[in-house]
């Protein structure tokens, strides 16, 4: 074996190892992009499932709170009506004053139970924001994996390999004109 032979063997081994590494890297990048895409769907699914439940909880609580306040209002109305019906002439001046005292007191002290639904709505809003942010994060991550993949495929020398093995560039996320134009706030 001459020195040239050894050099050729070494070069061949290096080339093989290089091919091995480039090929494996390209395979990994393509799969990572697919994974990132699937993870976007995971979060979309979460949004679909979670927000429906949260809205239902809020709606149920609102109903509960409304019915309680209505009970208070109805009961108070009945009280006031009864007081109105009271025959003022039949009662002496003493009671007249008492009646007016009572209505004053009542007007002063009339307080309804505090509404609490805002906390539930705040929590709902917080979760909407968090989920949408998570979806956006997953989409950006997907775009990042596509960029790495496409860069490798377009760059020399891995581009030779990509062509030989039919590895293609991947499209990035696109919201479409209808979605990106709509700001969602009306």
């Amino acid at each position: 074996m001459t020195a040239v032979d050894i050099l050729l063997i070494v070069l061949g081994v290096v080339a093989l190892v290089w091919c091995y590494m480039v090929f494996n890297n390209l395979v990994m990048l393509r799969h990572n992009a697919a994974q990132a895409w699937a993870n976007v769907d995971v979060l979309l699914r979460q949004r679909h499932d979670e927000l429906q439940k949260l809205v239902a909880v809020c709606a149920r609580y609102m109903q509960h709170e409304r019915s309680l306040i209505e009970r208070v209002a109805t009961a108070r109305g009945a009280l006031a009506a009864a007081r109105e019906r009271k025959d003022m002439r039949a009662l002496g001046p003493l009671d007249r004053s008492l009646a007016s005292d009572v209505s004053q007191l009542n007007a002063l002290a009339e307080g309804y139970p505090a509404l609490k639904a805002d906390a539930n709505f705040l929590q709902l809003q917080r979760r909407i924001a968090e989920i949408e942010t998570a979806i956006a994060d997953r989409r950006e991550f997907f775009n990042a994996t596509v960029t790495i993949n496409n860069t490798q495929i377009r760059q020399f020398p891995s581009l030779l390999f990509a062509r030989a093995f039919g590895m293609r560039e991947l499209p990035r996320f696109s919201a479409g004109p209808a979605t990106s134009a709509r700001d969602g706030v009306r």
Partner: protein
Amino acid sequence: MFVGLGVVAAIVIVFFWYVSTQNRLVAVRENVAQAWSNIDVLLKQRHDELQKLVDTCRQYMKYEQETFDKVLEARASIFGARRSSDPAALGKAESELRGRLGKLFALAENYPDLKANQTFLLLQQRISGLETGISDRRELYNAAVNANNVAIDQFPGNVVASIGGFKSAKLLEFDAASTADVDIKALFNT
């Protein structure tokens, strides 16, 4: 002799390489199955836990409603007693009643604080926690599938996989209906 040794060494190396690659493929395939099962664990938890939490909320709502009704009834009966008592008796107790009335109304107008929203809030938080947990498990599953598929498609895994019949796993896919965006406005109106 020298060549023979080299061939034997090469065969041994290739054999160990093959075995270790195959073992790796087995391991990643098992991980896929584990990750899939872990999604089910969380789905099961969601099913069990949310039912209980909703029942608890319902129970508390009922309690709050009954308490409110009792407060309202009690108040109405106080008023009724005052109205039915005859003027003479009222006159006697007038000063005392006045003082008491003032206190009574001032005190009684403090309605019990609504607290059911706390249980609802906890329910909401648990819904979010569980759904996030499910998503995490699903992403872990996707990661396991990815590790499996990369191992199968990379060299030398692709050779071993085609000999040993290792198959690529499927990433999670949902139909369009189950990933559709929710219309909050419509949901509140239903």
